[in-house]
């Protein structure tokens, strides 16, 4: 039982819920519209179709990562900090295995990423290691491994067999003027939505994230649910990593830097509670759009990339503080 007064509790509790519902539901799209409005005031070219694609393009890979990361956050295990190194790893593996043909290279790249996810999932889900500490260590170790195994060099696609050209085209392919990777993001978001809403796994993920003990004593294989959420995150991360290597025409250990923080920010402003159990794919996609719009507006307004990093960091702190503040005033809703 909380120590708070009954009437005060009710009001502040609904405040906390309101912040989260606003961000998690259609509310984030109100922010999107607002930013579109601001953007059109900042620059006359803002609402041209060319620029709208420019907004989406740089955050498409981020969107792919965030849609998978959402499962980890929903499971109540905060974040997967091994995202940058996993992206670099899968990109480098894909590039180095182009000799097997394009399909073989993509499979190897995804497989490498999934292996990282499997290790994360086993250690965090089954051995109950702290997710933040473990994935941080994982990232560090993987980073070291990549630098060591390549001697600190980049790897480049092998263009002699033709697979290299196809690989580079993976991220550049367009249909009717719409980038293929944007369609891929839409597809993955759709699948993720179905997974979260319409499957037993999604139901159990929500229960595990909301109340781990309850899930464990309701017949849910909680360990497996947690492991699967890390595997899903690793899968989308590896997908983004391969596409990033294709986009930059090289595999390098710096690919993926910054994706961890940006993805967490997108997930959180998309209304996914860091405490677990709450959130929608719809909201996360909105969060990603907000990140894209902000970046684009700041670029149009002439801000440098360092200024943008500071602004995004500040935004993250403000959103998390607002949520924490509202939650703390009301006490956790489940007490």
């Amino acid at each position, binding site marked *: 039982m909380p120590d708070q*007064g009954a009437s005060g509790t009710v009001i502040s509790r609904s405040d906390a819920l309101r912040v989260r519902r606003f961000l998690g539901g259609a509310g984030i799209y109100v922010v999107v519209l607002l930013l579109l409005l601001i953007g059109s005031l900042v620059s006359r070219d803002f609402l041209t179709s060319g620029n709208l694609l420019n907004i989406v393009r740089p955050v498409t890979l981020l969107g792919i990562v965030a849609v998978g990361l959402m499962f980890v956050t929903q499971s109540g295990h905060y974040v997967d900090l091994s995202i940058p190194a996993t992206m670099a790893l899968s990109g480098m593996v894909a590039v180095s295995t182009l000799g097997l043909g394009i399909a073989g290279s993509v499979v190897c790249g995804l497989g490498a990423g999934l292996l990282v996810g499997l290790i994360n999932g086993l250690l965090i889900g089954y051995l109950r290691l702290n997710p933040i500490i473990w994935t941080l260590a994982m990232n560090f170790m993987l980073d070291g491994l990549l630098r060591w195994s390549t001697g600190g060099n980049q790897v480049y696609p092998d263009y002699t067999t033709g697979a290299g050209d196809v690989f580079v085209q993976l991220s550049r392919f367009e249909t009717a003027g719409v980038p293929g990777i944007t369609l891929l993001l839409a597809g993955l978001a759709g699948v993720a939505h179905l997974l979260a809403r319409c499957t037993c796994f999604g139901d159990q993920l929500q*229960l595990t994230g909301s109340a781990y003990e*309850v899930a464990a004593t309701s*017949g849910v294989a909680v360990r497996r649910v947690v492991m699967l959420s890390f595997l899903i995150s690793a899968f989308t991360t590896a997908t983004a990593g391969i596409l990033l290597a294709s986009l930059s025409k090289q595999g390098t250990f710096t690919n993926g830097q910054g994706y961890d923080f940006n993805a967490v920010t997108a997930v959180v402003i998309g209304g996914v509670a860091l405490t677990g159990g709450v959130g929608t794919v719809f909201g996360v996609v909105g969060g990603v759009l907000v990140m894209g719009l902000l970046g684009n507006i700041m670029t149009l307004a002439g801000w440098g990339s360092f200024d943008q990093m500071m602004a995004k960091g500040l935004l993250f702190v403000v959103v998390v503080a607002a949520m924490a503040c509202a939650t703390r005033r009301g006490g956790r809703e489940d007490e």
Partner: protein
Amino acid sequence: MPEAYILRLSAVTKSYPGTLAVDGVDLTIRRGEVHALMGENGAGKSTLMKILAGSFDDYTGTIEIDGRVARISSPAQAKAHGIEMIHQELSLAGPLSIAENILVGRLPRRGVFLDGNAMAVEARRCLDQVGLDVNPRQAVEMLSQHEAQLVEIARALGNNPAVLVMDEPTSALSRAETNRLFAIIERLKQRGVTIIYVSHHLPEVYQIADRITVLRDGRKIATVAAEEVKPWSLVEMMIGQPAGQARIERRREPGRKRFRVRNFTRSGFFHDIRFFIRAGEILGIGGLAGAGRTELARCLSGVDPLDSGDMMLDGRYIEPTSMRACMKQGIAYLTEDRKRQGLALRLSALTNTANAVHAKRGQLLSRRERRELFSRQAAQLQLQPAQPQRQMVQFSGGNQQKVLLGKWLATAPEVLILDEPTRGVDVGAKQVIHEKIAQLADRGKCVLLISSDLPELATLSDRVMIMRKGRFIREMSKTELSENAILLAANADREVRFHA
């Protein structure tokens, strides 16, 4: 001339959403007495004492201290009025030294640094009052449970309290340690400290209390002088008149043996447990907290791993490899702590009703099936309000417990294990839950009922096994049970008191 009464509570009331935890309690405490506060779990003892200790700022009614009305809305105010509380769970910081724990909030300083010597001297003075001879620079985590509790008392005494509230202070102590504690209480009493002693153990209350107040369901039943009241009448006051409760109708006699458990052992928790349950039988398991009853239930339902033993339902072995495996073979386990293990309080009643079924089937029910399931459970358990999308937190304790029962009934169990199925629920909900349990048995299912609520155990069970320190020590039949229900309460108590 100081007032004869140091504390006078009038019409003190505290409500949680959905329940009145303390309901219009009048209570007077004489200066320098040891006043015992008794009652069953959920009677409101702890809440009432927390009000005195300043844990709530939304109680109603008045508290007079030394004849002056005082509003106690924070722990600091309680301390300022000379009220100190020793909580049931120890609140010491393990890695810090004994001295730092005792002097928390008033650490002596020299300049910007702590004054280690002054700290040790002052801590020594406090420790002497409880007769504890340890090095104050030692870390608290090096102490035994009993010593840690004495440190906690020393800390409270360091503030020179006029009133010391002790909430179930002996629950983790051995007999010898309890006697040492009583000697300390006696000394404090001679120094003029007023002590409020919260407990539900009869023998120790008789040993130290001058007067006794009994609470039940948040209300005060009576205040009596300890030497004038008989134990049986105290027990009657605590548990209420069983005759006043509606009886549970059973429509059939237990049939053939359906569920058997042999040699169940999880070392350190329970040993060589064997029993059977007949078709349509309710087998009760009685015993004190820590006897291993919940641990047994967790292994029976596959939540925790088992060291050895086997179980059989209708002649087929059940392998408790996982909880889901047990659920699929017909076992359901209603956990004891609905807030932490039973219900996801942030999710809706509908989701909570369906999630055990989903886990059992490994497949989601359709939207329509889920709605139907919810309306069926809501109707048969008289859920109020019967709103599927309402969050669990917004239901009262009794209705939360109904949803929890509904969640497990929905899995259509052959063996239903119930761990404290009516803890902290109101009388109405309790009646509904009891009727559902009896109906389930009447349909030929096996029920295992773990309960610390003795009237509940007596009215519902066909047989009761008494468990102590991880073993079954006695079996009682239905006839013995109804006659002995109250005796049982006292006996189980005494066994621990005198054999520990």
